[in-house]
C-alpha cells in the first residue's frame, strides 16, 4: 500500500525530477539488509524545499549560540535580521560574562557597497562594535553578494584582530555554497577547530567532557547539563548552545567528546581525536531511555566504579520523579502514529521519545542529513564527493605533539567500542521498523500527499509545514523550535514533551473543525410562520 502511495506520488513529477526524487525515498524492508538512500544532493530548482542555505547553517546554527561574541553579518540587512532571536538557542549570562544574544549586527550593505566594494564599511563596522560593545571576540559572516563582489573579509578580520587584540574570525559562508545548511555547519566548525580550539590551557577536574552538537534549543542544554553536573561531570565546553568562545578555547583539555547532533559536528569530533587524542561517543539525550543508556555508556567509558554507582543513583532518582507524569501523558497519546521531518539528527533522536509515549513513527526524514546519518558511518567510504562538496574547504589536522594524550589504551578502546557507539554512529534506518518510510529532503508536495495518505496524529516538522498539516486537521509540532516550549531533552524534558504532544493531539479545538450544520442539515421541530 505504501509502495503504491509513493509510486503515485512520483508519477506527478516531470521525468527528470521523478528520477531524482525516487533516489531519496526508501521503504524499510525485512529482507533488505542495508537499504541505501540518496542524500546531501542539490534540491531541484522550483521544488518547494524546507532547506535553508549555507549562511543559515554557519551563522544561524553554529555561531549564533555563542553568547560572548558579537556576530557581524556582512551583507544586506535581511540575513542578519532573520537570524535574530528566531532559533531559540538560549544563553544564560554568568557573572562577569558578556552576552550579545539579543542583539543583531549588520553592515547593511547598500548598492554603492555592491558597486565599489564593502571592505571599508566592514572595517568601520568592526571599529564601531569595539567602541560601543567592547566584545571579547567578533565573527564576520559573509552573505551571497560578498563573495561575488570579491570582498576579502578574512584580510579585514586579520588586520582588525591585530589592531584590537581580540579574536576576529571571518567565515566565507555565502548562501549559495553547498546544497543546504550543512555546508555552513562545516565552515563554522572547521574554523572554530582551526583558530579557537586549543588556544587556552585549563586545569581540568574529574571527568572533563565536551558536548558537541548541542544547541540549547528551548533550554535542552540546561537540562542535560543539570543531570551531567549532578552526576559529577565537568563540562569544559559546549559547541555551541549556551556556549562561549572562551570555553571552546579550552575544549582540547576534555577527556571525552559527546556527540549529540552527529550531522553538524561528527567531523570535528574526529579531528579532536586525531589532534588531541580525545575519543568521541555518540549520545542521544532525547527520551529517558536513550538518555539513561547514554549516561551508562559515559560512566563505563570512564570506568570508575564510584561514577557508575552515582550514575545509577541519579538515573533512578530522575526516573522516579518523571514516572507518574510520563505514564499519565502516555495514556493520552498511546496508539497513535507520527511523521517526522526535521534536521540532520532530530528525526532519529525523537523517534525514541515518541515510542516512549506510545506513538509509532511511520515516516522519518532529514532536511539536510547525509547518507551516514541515515545508513550509519560504515557507508562513509562509499560516499563520493560532488562538485558542491568540493567547494567547501576541507580541514586537515595533525597530531598536536605537545597536547596529544591517549585517554584510553588501544585495547580498552577496542573493547569499549564493542559495547557502545564509541567513535561510531549507526544511523537512523537501523532503528526503524520494517514497512516504515524514510524520505530525504521531503518537500511541500510530498508532505501534502503523504500526510493525506498516512493521516498521522502528529507531524513533527518546522514552521513552514506546521500550518499545512494543521489545515488538514493534523497536529503539527515544530521540532526545530518546539513551538516556543521546552526543554524536551533529558528526563524532565520528556515530561514537557509528553505534555505538549498530548495537549496538541487532544485539544478540543479539533472537534470544532466541521460546523454542526454540515452534519445535521435537516430542519427539526416546529416553526411558526414561514422562514
Amino acid at each position, binding site marked *: 500500500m505504501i509502495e503504491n502511495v509513493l509510486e503515485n506520488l512520483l508519477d506527478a513529477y516531470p521525468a527528470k525530477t521523478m528520477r531524482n526524487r525516487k533516489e531519496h525515498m526508501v521503504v524499510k524492508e525485512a529482507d533488505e539488509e542495508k537499504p541505501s538512500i540518496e542524500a546531501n544532493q542539490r534540491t531541484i530548482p522550483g521544488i518547494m524545499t*524546507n532547506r535553508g542555505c549555507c549562511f543559515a547553517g554557519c551563522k544561524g546554527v553554529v555561531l549564533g549560540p555563542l553568547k560572548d561574541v558579537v556576530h557581524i553579518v556582512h551583507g544586506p540587512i535581511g540575513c542578519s535580521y532573520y537570524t535574530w532571536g528566531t532559533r531559540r538557542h538560549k544563553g544564560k549570562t554568568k557573572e562577569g560574562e558578556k552576552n550579545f544574544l539579543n542583539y543583531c549586527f549588520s553592515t547593511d550593505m547598500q548598492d554603492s557597497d555592491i558597486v565599489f566594494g564593502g571592505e571599508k564599511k566592514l572595517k568601520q563596522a568592526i571599529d564601531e562594535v569595539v567602541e*560601543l560593545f567592547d566584545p571579547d571576540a567578533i565573527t564576520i559572516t559573509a552573505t551571497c553578494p560578498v563573495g*561575488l563582489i570579491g570582498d576579502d573579509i578574512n584580510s579585514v578580520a586579520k588586520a582588525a584582530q591585530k589592531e584590537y587584540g581580540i579574536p576576529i574570525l571571518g567565515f566565507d559562508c555565502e548562501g549559495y555554497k553547498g546544497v543546504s545548511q550543512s555546508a555552513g555547519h562545516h565552515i563554522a566548525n572547521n574554523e572554530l577547530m582551526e583558530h579557537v580550539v586549543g588556544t587556552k590551557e585549563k586545569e581540568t577536574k574529574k571527568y572533563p567532557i565536551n558536548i558537541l552538537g548541542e544547541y540549547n534549543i528551548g533550554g535542552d542544554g540546561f537540562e542535560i547539563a543539570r543531570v551531567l553536573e549532578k552526576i559529577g561531570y565537568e563540562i569544559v565546553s559546549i559547541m555551541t548552545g549556551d556556549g562561549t568562545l572562551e570555553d571552546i578555547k579550552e575544549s582540547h583539555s576534555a577527556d571525552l567528546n559527546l556527540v549529540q547532533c552527529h550531522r553538524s559536528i561528527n567531523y570535528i569530533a574526529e579531528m579532536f581525536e586525531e589532534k588531541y587524542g580525545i575519543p568521541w561517543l555518540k549520545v542521544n539525550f532525547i527520551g529517558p531511555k536513550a538518555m539513561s543508556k547514554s549516561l551508562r555508556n559515559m560512566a563505563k567509558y570512564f570506568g570508575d566504579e564510584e561514577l557508575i554507582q552515582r550514575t545509577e543513583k541519579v538515573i533512578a532518582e530522575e526516573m522516579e520523579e518523571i514516572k507518574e507524569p510520563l505514564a499519565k501523558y502516555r495514556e493520552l497519546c498511546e496508539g497513535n502514529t507520527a511523521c517526522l521531518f526535521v534536521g540532520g539528527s532530530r528525526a532519529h533522536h525523537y523517534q525514541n521519545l515518541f515510542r516512549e509515549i506510545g506513538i509509532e513513527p511511520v515516516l522519518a526524514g532529514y532536511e539536510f542529513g547525509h547518507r551516514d546519518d541515515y545508513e550509519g558511518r560504515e557507508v562513509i567510504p562509499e560516499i563520493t564527493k560532488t562538485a558542491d562538496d568540493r567547494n567547501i574547504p576541507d580541514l586537515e589536522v595533525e597530531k598536536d605533539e605537545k597536547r596529544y594524550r591517549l585517554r584510553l589504551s588501544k585495547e580498552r578502546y577496542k573493547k569499549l567500542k564493542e559495547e557502545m557507539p564509541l567513535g561510531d554512529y549507526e544511523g537512523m534506518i537501523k532503528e526503524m521498523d520494517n514497512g516504515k518510510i524514510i524520505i530525504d529532503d521531503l518537500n511541500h508536495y510530498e508532505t501534502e500527499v503523504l500526510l493525506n495518505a498516512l493521516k498521522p496524529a502528529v507531524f513533527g516538522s518546522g*514552521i513552514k509545514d506546521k500550518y499545512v498539516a494543521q*489545515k488538514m486537521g493534523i497536529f503539527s509540532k515544530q521540532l526545530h523550535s518546539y513551538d516556543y516550549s521546552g526543554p524536551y531533552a533529558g528526563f524532565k524534558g520528556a515530561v514537557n514533551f509528553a505534555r505538549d504532544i498530548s495537549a496538541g493531539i487532544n485539544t478540543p479545538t479539533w472537534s470544532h473543525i*466541521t460546523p454542526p450544520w454540515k452534519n445535521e442539515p435537516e430542519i427539526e421541530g416546529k416553526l411558526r410562520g414561514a422562514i
Partner: protein
Amino acid sequence: MAVRSKEIEERSALVVNPAKTCQPIGAMYAALGINKCLPHSHGSQGCCSFHRMHLTRHFRDPIVASTSSFTEGASVFGGRSNLMTAMKNVFNIYDPDVVAINTTCLSETIGDDIGSMVAGMDIPEGKTIIHASTPSYVGSHITGFSNMVQAMAKQLAETTEDDGTNGKINIIPGFVDPGDMREIKRITKIMGIPFIMFPDTTGVVDSPITGKYEMYPAGGTTVEKIKDAGNSKSTIALGSFASAEGAFELDRKCDVPPNVLKTPIGIKATDEFIMQLVKMTGKEVPYALEEERGQLVDIMTDTHYHFHGKKAAIFGDPDIVIALTELALSLGIEPTYVLTGTPDNSFEEEVEEMLAGAGVEGKVKAGGDLFELQQWIKNESVDLLLGNTYGKYIAKEKDIPLVRVGFPILDRSVHSYLPIVGYRGAMRLIEKISGALLDREDREATEEDLELVM
C-alpha cells in the same frame, strides 16, 4: 545584556537591531495577494526559506513560495538554467495560475535579467509570470512590496474598455494585514462603490481551517481583476511608501489618475479616505459609517484623560508609523520618538511637520535602528512603545508597556485577522493602548490608590 553606553555615538557602517528587513519578503507578501499565485524567489534557497518562515510566524498560516535554489555554479554562470528548470517544475507540480518572481541580492549582483529570461520561456497556456526587481541592498521590505505592486500594474493592467472605464476605483491597501484589507473593503462596499483591490491577501494568509489543505485558498485578487484595473476611474494608494508607485504606474500606463493617501489609521486618516471616496464618486456616506465615526469620537472623548500628556515611542514601517503618529496626536499622546528603518527623508519631513503642528518636540528618524531608539529612551524614557515585536527587548529592559502594532508580530496572535484601520480599527487600537496604560497603573498602584472605576 544592558546597553552600557548612554552616549549616542554616530555610526556610519554598523546597524544594530534593525527596524527593517530586505526587499524580497515584501515582494513575496504582495504576490500572495494575487489569487492562485505562487511567489518565486530567484536566488539561494535560504532567502526563500527565511521569508516563508518569517511570514508564517506573523500570520500563523501556510506561506507558499518556490526558489531557484542557486548553487555556486549558478552564481558564477547566471541563473537562467535554474529559472527555466524551476518554472517547469512549478507549473507541473504546483500548478499556480500566476508565478510572481522576485530577485534577491544574489541574482541582482550577478545581473540576471529576468525580463529577457521570461520572454524566452515556454509558459503554459492560460498561465502568467510576472517579475519584480527587488535587490536586498536598496530600501527595505516596504520597497520590495511597492516594487511587486508596481510590477502587477505594469505587467498585468490593461486599458481595454472602449470608453476607458469600468466604473470602478482601484484601491492599493499597502503593507497591512488581511484584517485591515477586509475593513477597507467593508467601508468601500457600504459606501456602495464598486472597486478593485490589489493586492488582497484576505482569504490567503488568514484562511479558515476546514480539514482540507488548499495550496491556493480562495482569496486574492484574480489576474482578470488586476488587468481590469487599467480601466478604472481612479486609484487610491493607501500609504505613500508601499502603494504610491503602483498607482503612478497605472497612471503612466493606463491613464488612471492616482490619489495617494495615508494608511487610514486613526480618525483623521480615515476621514480623509472616506472624503476621497465621496469626492471621487459623489456617493453619500451611509449612516452606518457615520454612526461608527460618532462612536469613535465618543470613545476618544470619554477616555482622553488616559492618554493626555503620555509620551510614546513609535517605530516600524513608514506608512504605519506616520499614521500611528497622527492617531497618537489625536488622542493627546506626545510621540517624542518616531523612527523607521526604511531609508527616505520624506518620512522625516512628514512626521516633523505633524509634530510641529501639534507643538510636540520629538526626535524623528528614517533609516534608523532600534539600538538608537534604545539609546534615546535610555536618556529620556517614555510611557509607551508602539511598534512590532522587536520592541520587546527595549520594553523589558526599561519596563515600558509595548502595544504591538505593525509587522512583524511574532509573539502574539490574532492581529492579522482584526483591523487597525478605519473607525473600528481606531477603536481597537484605543482599547489596546488604554488597556496597556491602565494595566500598568493598576500594577503600580499602592493599596490605597487602587481605583475600581477608572
